[in-house]
């Protein structure tokens, strides 16, 4: 925590905010890609100390929020089966499917467990050979290495009762989709620091070049975020569009090559539907053919699952940055964290939940 205190110093934060105010001569819209960054901005009130010229747009980088409803419904169907144990990260439990959430399935007798690592699910599969253990593998590039390692481990041990419901998503295709969407207002991106710690930064210079947009790799603490914003504004004001790394204590250009190798062996690119946004080409990972035996979608009969989104929910517009959460007509009325219509109101990283919980209306 002493280490973290360095990146939360209030005086330095105010100095950085003042510096951004001196740099900014006209309005700029900057999107933070990652949900963790959104929460840090709202929790710490960073947007409130920025000059009025700077508008932060909250991006689609919350894995819980963009996981398609159909995947949630499949997880619910798996969890309802008497022979299965469904393992998930905690914040997926409250995400509503078409009709119910994992908490409801658990209350009705389904075996649903919160784990902190996919390796915990492998351990469970080893100790419960009488049950099918399924891990709900969602997330961006950040969670992919551990998920891939869990599959490798299960394969090495020949654990026939372990499988994964995979719905991995990737940041660079999402940035491309946002820049190509007709109503795009984004002038610059803060790239997600933890994704880049795995994948490196080499994927981003071509995007900055193609769309003429500054991309600054940014961390999650208040001073990290302010420094990332300062650098994007400096680029925008000078008419530049480059990749910069404002999170060098964690991120290198090449990233974690061992992790990338594990991912490349276990996963293969796939077109992925993003909840509220639609299908983005090559924007996700599925299990590679060599590991298809661990694919829960093949192991269980999940046909006939059709997902129905709430017609009121505008989370897609929120995730693309077209509207602020509080501009959705259902925000705080039909849709609250207690009665969420979409995942952005559920996840602790979701933009709607961040707004609601911080009292932004």
């Amino acid at each position: 925590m002493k280490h973290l205190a360095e990146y939360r110093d209030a005086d330095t934060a105010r100095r950085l905010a003042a510096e951004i105010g001196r740099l900014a001569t006209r309005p700029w819209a900057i999107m933070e890609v990652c949900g963790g960054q959104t929460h840090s901005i709202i929790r710490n009130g960073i947007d409130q100390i920025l000059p009025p010229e700077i508008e932060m747009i909250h991006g689609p980088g919350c894995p819980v929020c963009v996981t398609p409803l159909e995947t949630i419904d499949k997880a619910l169907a798996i969890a309802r089966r008497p022979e299965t144990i469904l393992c998930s990260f905690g914040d997926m439990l409250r995400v509503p499917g078409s009709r119910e959430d994992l908490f409801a399935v658990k209350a009705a007798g389904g075996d649903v467990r919160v784990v902190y690592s996919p390796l915990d699910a492998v351990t469970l599969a080893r100790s419960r050979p009488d049950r099918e253990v399924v891990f709900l593998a969602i997330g961006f590039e950040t969670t992919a290495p551990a998920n891939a390692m869990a599959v490798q481990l299960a394969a090495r041990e020949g654990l026939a009762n372990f499988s994964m419901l995979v719905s991995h998503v990737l940041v660079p295709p999402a940035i491309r989709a946002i820049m190509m969407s007709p109503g795009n207002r984004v002038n610059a991106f803060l790239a997600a620091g933890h994704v880049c710690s795995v994948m490196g930064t080499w994927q981003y210079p071509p995007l900055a070049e193609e769309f003429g947009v500054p991309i600054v790799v940014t961390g999650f603490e208040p001073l990290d975020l302010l420094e990332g914003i300062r650098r994007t504004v400096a680029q925008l004001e000078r008419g530049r569009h480059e990749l910069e790394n404002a999170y060098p204590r964690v991120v290198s250009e090449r990233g974690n090559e061992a992790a990338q190798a594990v991912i490349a062996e276990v996963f293969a690119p796939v077109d992925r539907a993003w909840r509220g946004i639609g299908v983005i080409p090559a924007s996700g990972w599925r299990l590679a053919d060599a590991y298809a035996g661990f694919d829960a979608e093949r192991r269980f009969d999940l046909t006939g699952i059709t997902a129905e989104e709430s017609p009121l929910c505008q989370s897609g517009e929120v995730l693309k940055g077209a509207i602020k959460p509080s501009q959705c007509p259902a925000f705080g009325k039909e849709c609250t964290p207690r009665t969420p219509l979409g995942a952005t109101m559920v996840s602790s990283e979701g933009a709607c939940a961040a707004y609601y919980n911080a009292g932004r209306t």
Partner: protein
Amino acid sequence: MAEPPPPDVAGFACPAPLRDRPQIVMGHGGGGALSQDLLEHIFLPAFGNPVLDQRGDSAVLDVAGLLADGGRLAFSTDAHVVQPLIFPGGSIGELAVNGTVNDLAMSGARPLSLSAAFILEEGLAIAELAGIVSRMAAAAERAGVSIVTGDTKVVERGRGDGLSITTAGIGVVPAGVELGPRQVQPGDAVIVSGTLADHGMAIMSVREGLAFEAAIESDTAPLAGLVAAMLAACPWLRLLRDPTRGGVATSLNEIAAAAGLGIEIEEPAIPVSPVVASGCEILGLDPLQVANEGKLLAIVPADEAQAVLAAMRAHEHGRQATLLGRVVAEHPGIVVMRTALGGSRVVPMPIGEQLPRIC
């Protein structure tokens, strides 16, 4: 054909040596000799006091003297379930005593007597029960209360989670002490008695097998002594609340709603120990929403705040007492935090259980 010999009824004895079993069996809840065994070998030796030793169907307490000078009776109950039963810093036994003692203390009462009802699961080790009961007796002694009546029931294996304990208690509120949301005024100080989130993180670290850099211990403690010291320093305390489940965020929201006033707290003032802060950070939990079992929130007239803080810091359970914020007339029913950076945000009422985040 010869008649079979008549059965020798007089010499009959059940061959199963039930009374020597090391585990709770259904018969321990049957009200017969096995129930008596538990009472005589486990509960009476630990809790023994003149009222309990009467072994009546109810405890008869002489409280007329305590109420003679305008004191009023406080009455509260608290049910306890926790896994594991024994955890760093305490057990379900301490929780069961301190939970009710603290509920009484939050009304300004001096706790007097508790009842304790035990629901035992078939198969619970009697040695484990005895250990928890002796911890409970020690907690009662520390809190200055007697356990004067009780009950045990046994449920079938798989239907009881080991052991649950429900306590109820009575205490006396001294004349002139009037705590409640109606007393709360704009400008009042909001004080917290020490570091937050220790209990919840201690339970989570053992339950989930998470090892942090140092062991996190539950803060379970009786707060009646601290409350007495605070009332001695300032008999006009407005309101006390122990922020257990749902943490300080829940208690502050309840206070703001009940008083019809706003509350403002300062982020840098929130006391959290470094190891608990790290644990919350790793799991994506908010220490304001995590349970405490030995802390209190006090709403105090602003000009008495320093005197109350001094009295608290002189007491073993209030050494790290600190000013957290203030009551305001603005934004009634809403708790607002001023962030270290100079922004602000609403501190919401938590919805359900806190969920560790994906990344």
